[in-house]
């Protein structure tokens, strides 16, 4: 697996090219709390985006509430500008089942109707359960179901593969 700094600088390059090639006007970047927000911070800086960075905490939109209950939420969502008719770059650390992204999209649409949403992920791992895919991915990793990719942070960011707690 590549180290985080390499992945981040590659993501900055590819995302910058996409913004230019497709003339994506004044995008608002939104990181998903907590790992995605850390990655988004680095990308936002690297791309020197004009609109301030936003953060989503999707606890209230999770689909497993009735099964595992509420996760204590300390950092609320914060979107610095209206999403109405805006281009959005959604950032997460690890794309796995796709459920987090579904929840994030639901939450974004409760703030308004964006023009376009692009998904950027640091890592994608095997095991998707929903038809959701990223536009830009740093690295794809094939993993067994009992393994997890963990991003430690915020300073420094560090990726590791761990055996999931049973």
């Amino acid at each position: 697996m590549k180290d985080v700094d390499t992945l981040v600088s590659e993501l900055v390059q590819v995302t910058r090219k996409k913004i230019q090639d497709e003339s994506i006007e004044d995008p608002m970047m939104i990181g998903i709390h907590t790992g995605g927000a850390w990655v988004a911070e680095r990308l936002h800086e690297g791309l020197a985006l004009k609109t301030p960075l936003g953060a989503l905490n999707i606890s209230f939109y999770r689909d497993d509430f009735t099964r595992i209950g509420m996760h204590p939420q300390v950092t609320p969502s914060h979107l610095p500008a209206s999403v109405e008719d805006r281009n959005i770059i959604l950032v997460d650390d690890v794309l796995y089942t796709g459920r987090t992204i579904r929840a994030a999209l639901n939450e974004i649409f409760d703030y308004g109707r964006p023009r376009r949403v692009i998904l950027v992920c640091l890592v994608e791992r095997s095991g998707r359960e929903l038809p959701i895919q990223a536009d830009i991915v740093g690295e794809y990793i094939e993993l067994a179901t009992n393994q997890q990719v963990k991003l430690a942070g915020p300073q420094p960011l560090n990726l590791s593969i761990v055996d999931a707690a049973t």
Partner: protein
Amino acid sequence: MGYKNSIQLTKDKKLRHFLTIEGLPRAILVEILDNAESFLTVGEQQVKKVPLLRGKVIVNLFFENSTRTRTTFELAAKRLSADVLNLNIATSATSKGESLLDTLQNLEAMHADMFVVRHALSGASFFIANHVAPHISVINAGDGCYAHPTQAMLDMLTIRKHFGAFADLNVAIVGDILHSRVARSEIHALTTLGVNEVRVIAPKTLLPSAIESMGVHVYNDMNKGLEGVDVIIMLRLQKERMDGAFVPSEEEYFNCYGLTEEKLRLANSHAIVMHPGPINRGVEIESSVADGKQSVILEQVSNGIAARMAIMSMCMSGIAAGEV
């Protein structure tokens, strides 16, 4: 205390009913406040809803009139995407002779998930919580003179938003302590959250006996009691709960215990003025104070929606996740 917690908490110490603040650990109160702060942002969304309680049925069971509490509970439930039934018992089956337990069983048969109960008798919500099916959560929206815990939590949220922390604060609760379920719940919440000092300011006729045992300082003289306080919680003179002569007249009560601009100057200059509503202008509070810069009375109402969202979702989550 043990009994109260055994019914309010699941085996793994999650909230499942919310009946009284008494005996709840500080961690639960802080969790309520943290969640409530997050829910405040939902009010800023274009679609002011989150899908947490989608498909849940919440029944507002109001045996006693209320506008603010019932509507904020209703709005809170709707912002959590729950379905809400408002039952005005005064005009329903109980007045045709149906017993309370029969009414409850009928509501359970309609697959209700939560009862929000307001009742004129102290302990009514405990009684209901003891008799509902295990998947149902009960929230006390005010019972008799006993407790009004959601009001206390929205007030704690308002205080924390203004001061950030509780440890250095001196809080005065002024007025009809005797008939006030709000006062009792506020005192439990403030002492659990660890404020510096809780004072109650009232004439002797409107103070319950042995109130000092709740850990408060008693003042009969409002001018002395307001010195150096950061938060003033005014209470309504509850005429409907009085069956004797507790105060000589409203005018005299206002002279001694009404919050005027002049008296407000005795408190710290940054002090905030709170009131659970409905306010009696000119009885316990001067109009210019109620509408003044230091008044946070309307903020309390907005915070009430978020605090109730937090409590409702935590109770439902406790039942979903925990072993009952």
